[in-house]
Structures are given as C-alpha cells and as structure tokens.
C-alpha cells in the first residue's frame, strides 16, 4: 500500500507539473459534450482503478487479475483491445478514401480472430502463466527463448504505444481544445495510474467499459446513418458511388493495391500479427481455465466481426453524407482535420454536437484503454521474462518482480510521452505498420511451431525468430514507408509496404530447417517432451500434474 501511495504522489505531481508545462495558449473551441463525456469516463475508470488496487496483492493478481475474469468479461476486453483507434477511426477513414480495398483489412482482421480461437487460445492458456513466452519456452531452453520473445514483444509494443500516443495528441488537439502536448500527457499519466495501481484487473475493466461504449456508440452511429437512407443499405451504397470521385469504382477492388504480393502480405500481417499481439495474448491468462479461454475468444470473434460490419456501414455512409458538404469536406475526399476524423464528422452530421462529443470522447477512451493494455504487457515482459526468469533465474521475490514491473510501466510511460512529443506532426504510419508485421514474422510462427510441431527445438526457434525479426525490420526500412516517405528517397529498394509474405516464410523455414538439423542432446530431450506438452495443452487441468 505504501508503494501505491508513493506512486500516486509521484504521478500526481507529474500529471499537474506536466500539464502546466504544456499549458500553452490554445485558441481552439472546446467541445463541451466531449469534455464532459471524457471526464465521466475518467472518473469511472479511476474509481475502477481504486477498487482494483485494493484487490491487487500478488504477482498473479497484478499480471492476470488473479485468473478471476470470466469468459464473457474477457471476450469484451479482448474485443476492446482489438477495436483500437486504428481499427475504428483509421478504418472508417480508409473506407471513405479507397472504398472496397479497405475490405482487405476488415476480412483479415476477422479471420485472424478465428485463427486465435482455434489454434492459439486454449493451448496458450494451458501452457502459460503470465506471458506468451511461458508457452513457447515450455519445453525449450528458457533463457534464449525468453530473451528472443521479449525482444520481439518490445519491438512490437514500443512502436505501437508511440503510434497510439501520437494519435491521442492529434485527436485531443482537434477535438477537446487542448494542445497536442497536453493530450499526450493526459493519456500517458492516466495510463500509468491505471496500470501501476490496478494492474490487469483495472486494465481489463477499463477495456470492458470502453468496449461497451464503443460498440454502443458505433451501433447508434450506424443506425443513424442507415436512418438517412430509410434503412436501405443499397440506397446508401448507390448514393456513395454517385458522389465519390471514384464513382462506381468505389465498390470495386484496385484503389489501394494492384499486385498480389502486397495484398497477400497485408492479409498475412493482419492475420498473423493480430494473433501475436503480446497484450492480447496475455488476456487468455486472466480466465480460470481453457474452456473460459475458448469461450472468451468466441465472444471476441462475434463482437469484432459485428464491429467490422458497423465500420463498413459508417465508412460508406460517410462517403454518401459528407462528400461535397463544405462543413466537413474541402473538396473530393479531403476531410477537414484529416481522414481519421471522418467518423467524428459523421456523428456531428447525423446527430449534432452532443453525439459528436460522445463519439470523440469514446475514441479518446479507446486509445487510453489500448495503451494501458500495451504498457501492462510490456511491464510483464521486462519483469517476468527478462528480470525474473533470465537475470535472476527465478530467484527473485514476488514483491521485487512487481516493483520492477511498476517501475517499467512508469519508465515506459515517461519515455512514450517524451517520444510522442518529439514525434509531433511526424508521419507515424510506419509505427502502425511495424507491430503487425513483426508479430506475424516472429511471435506467430514461434507460437504455432512450438505448440503444434514436436520436432521444434531451441536452435530452430532462435534462428527462425531472429531471422524473421531482422528481415522484417530491414525490409520495412528499405520499403516505401520508410525509404521514400521518411528518408525522402525517390524509389524504395524493397517495393512492398508489408514484407510479411517473405519474413514470415523465412521464420517458418529457418525454424524448420535449424530444428531438423539439430542433433544435440538438448534437442533430443526437447522432442521427447512434446507428447507431455501436447497432452497438457489440450487437456489442461486433467493433466495438471504433468506441469510439475
């Protein structure tokens, strides 16, 4: 409790000194309904955090909410993690600009959750305790696997966190009347409070509240859009095609990708990347058993699929209603404030300022909830995988491990805010590209091979994971997102924005090759341990004695 009090005092001063430092004069109109909705959300979530902090005593409480979350609650929390600002504001904006081709993202995202349900959820829950590295290293050598998994996890989470914080700053700047820096500090400090005090229990409930708000707000917005067309989706699509600069081609492929490798790489990045996000995988340890893990994944599939249909309706509805409206559009598909604000403008068009304020606050809450999950997972990666298992070789106390986790959360929060302020106005598209591509090229193949193939060895995992990580980062740097858009060169050395087709294949190939050629005594032991792992991964509690 003393530690929590110390954190609270530190964060209190950090919050208000940060805000006063950032209190530059801002001449933007304040959206009162948005501020009221967000303040209500903040009060509710801080209340949840106080409640959760009282229940968080042990390592298990902090990392996985004591394993007490039900399948239904976890399903909502997982759906909330997936329904990030990128998959709401970003995808609606993408449908608005390119039309049909946004469906590549939507279809892949939905399929990725089926993959999680049938291939990952139960086995992961039965094999691991706190992080996905527990499952990969179940029968493989602990030290190299945990170092590799932690490197991949941090390579995914740090850019993802940064992208979300930059998005939060921009959103606040445009909607709440605060400055960019104030927006970043508000999100950063609240995120640290939720995670450091309330751990997974607070993070989960914040995510559930946000998921309910987002699903409710999205449904209301979609219904209001359809109301404008007498609930005739065909009429809405016809109206969209009639006003969009692409005309009837809006509903046909070809707006975004024209080559098969790009399209397939994108699909693989979404399928494999979503199924390998460390903060989402960690949620499967918060339920009491594998049946509840399966139940939660199934609920998440339903909610995410439903939400993607909502996104399509909102996106095409926005085309029909906002294009050529001078209040929101400056001509063609140019939207005032950028394409990420399409859903917000649409809310204003269909139901006025109060509804716009509500949707804005929900979008901001979405970012807040997602960054909390990412930070908690990053803290667990450093304290559990690196500090406890690698550095202290399982000899540190629970209190010590928790302290390291909380310090990591605060350090990561401060680093994230600092970097987000530096990155103001920069193109952060690359930061959103990296996590999915890295996840699909490292964690996803490693999880699948370790859980499904008895021949997989530590050498194969290290070689496959390292090759995947190096290749994906190199190809992204040489690709159009960095080489052309960031470095300013005329032509990219590697022509595809998503290199997943190549990097994921290399990870699988290296993992397979270096495993089958591994004749060491360690490899023989690892292969022999597979049947027991398989039994535990499938039957869970029935063979729990095998874990020992």
């Amino acid at each position, binding site marked *: 409790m003393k530690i929590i009090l110390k954190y609270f005092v530190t964060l209190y001063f950090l919050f208000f000194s940060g805000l006063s430092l950032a209190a530059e004069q801002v001449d933007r109109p304040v959206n009162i309904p948005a501020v009221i909705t967000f303040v209500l959300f903040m009060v509710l979530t801080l209340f949840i955090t106080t409640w959760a902090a009282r229940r968080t005593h042990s390592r298990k409480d902090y990392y996985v909410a004591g394993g007490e979350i039900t399948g239904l609650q976890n399903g909502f929390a997982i759906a909330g993690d997936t329904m990030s600002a990128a998959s709401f504001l970003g995808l609606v904006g993408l449908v608005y600009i390119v039309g049909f081709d946004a469906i*590549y993202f939507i279809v892949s995202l939905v399929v990725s959750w*089926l*993959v999680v349900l049938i291939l990952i959820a139960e086995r992961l829950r039965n094999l691991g305790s706190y992080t996905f590295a527990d499952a990969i290293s179940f029968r493989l050598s602990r030290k190299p696997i945990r170092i590799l998994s932690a490197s991949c996890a941090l390579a995914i989470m740090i850019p993802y966190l940064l992208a979300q914080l930059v998005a939060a700053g921009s959103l606040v700047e445009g909607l709440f009347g605060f400055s960019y820096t104030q927006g970043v500090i508000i999100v950063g400090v609240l995120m640290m409070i939720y995670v450091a005090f309330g751990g997974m229990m607070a993070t989960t409930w914040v995510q559930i509240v946000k998921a309910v708000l987002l699903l409710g707000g999205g449904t209301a917005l979609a219904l209001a859009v359809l109301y404008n067309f007498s609930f005739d989706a065909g009429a809405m699509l016809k109206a969209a095609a009639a006003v969009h600069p692409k005309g009837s081609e809006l509903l046909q492929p*070809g707006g975004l990708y024209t080559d*098969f490798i790009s399209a397939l790489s994108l699909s693989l990045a979404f399928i494999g990347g979503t199924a390998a996000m460390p903060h989402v995988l960690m949620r499967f340890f918060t339920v009491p058993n594998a049946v509840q893990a399966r139940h939660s994944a199934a609920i998440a599939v339903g909610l995410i699929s439903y939400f993607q*249909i909502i996104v399509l309706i909102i996106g095409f509805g926005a085309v029909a209603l906002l294009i050529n409206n001078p209040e929101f559009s400056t001509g063609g598909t140019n939207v005032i404030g950028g394409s990420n604000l399409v859903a917000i403008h649409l809310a204003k068009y269909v139901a006025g300022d109060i509804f716009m304020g509500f949707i804005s606050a929900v979008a901001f809450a979405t970012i807040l909830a997602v960054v909390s999950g990412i930070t908690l997972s990053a803290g667990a990666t450093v304290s559990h995988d690196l500090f406890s298992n690698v550095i202290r070789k399982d000899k540190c106390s629970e209190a010590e491990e928790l302290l390291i986790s909380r310090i990591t959360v605060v350090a990561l929060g401060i680093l994230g805010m600092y970097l987000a302020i530096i990155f103001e106005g920069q193109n952060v598209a690359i930061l959103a590209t990296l996590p999915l591509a890295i996840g699909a090229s490292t964690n996803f193949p490693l999880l699948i091979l370790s859980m499904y193939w008895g021949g997989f060895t530590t050498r194969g995992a290290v070689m496959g994971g390292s090759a995947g990580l190096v290749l994906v980062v190199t190809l992204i740097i040489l690709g159009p997102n960095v080489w052309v858009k960031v470095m300013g060169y005329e032509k990219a050395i590697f022509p595809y924005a998503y290199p997943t087709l190549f990097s994921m294949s290399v990870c699988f190939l290296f993992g397979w090759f270096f495993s089958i050629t591994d004749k060491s005594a360690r490899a023989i032991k690892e292969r022999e341990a597979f049947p027991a792992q398989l039994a535990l991964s*499938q039957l869970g509690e029935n063979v*729990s004695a095998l874990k020992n």
Partner: protein
Amino acid sequence: MSNENNGLLIESEAYISYVKRRKKFILKLALFHFALVFVFDALAIFEPTLFALPMWPGSIFNIGLIYAFVIIFSVIASTFYYSHRINQEESKFTESLNQTERTSS
C-alpha cells in the same frame, strides 16, 4: 490425476483418437479460412472485373462485396460450430476416460 495415470492417458486409444480428431478438425477449419482469404486476394487482384459484377442486374451489391460478407459470416458460423464441436468432443473423451477408469477399478 497422478503422473502414472497421465502416462497411461497419453498412451490410451481414447486419447490418441481424440487428439487426431481434434487436430484434423481445427486444421480443416483454419485451412478453409486461409483459402477463403487467399482466393479473395487473388480474385481482387487478378479478376477485379469479376468482383465488380452485380449480384443481379441493376444491383449495387457486387460479387466482391458479397464474398467479403460471406467470409465474415463464415467466421461467425465457424466460431459457433467450433465451440459446439469441441464441447462434444471433450464430453465424449471425458466419458470414455470415465468408462476406462470404471472398467479398471
């Protein structure tokens, strides 16, 4: 369940057939959906005119849009089917385990 019993469990016929059935089922389901996405990508790139064909004359809904919805609804339906089927498999397996225990005792 003791370690000794776990060893027996892994070698039991009921367990081996349960593992095989389950593996076959999830691989089929996963491959089917990977194939759906692969075909979607391939048709969108190589046959965009096919995707642009209206579902019926004068309709704004084209084959591409409908195909996308087929994938989404297939995922939802598969989720229900998977949960139902795995529950069935598990209860069948537990039943056969109980029967074996009853016989041996």
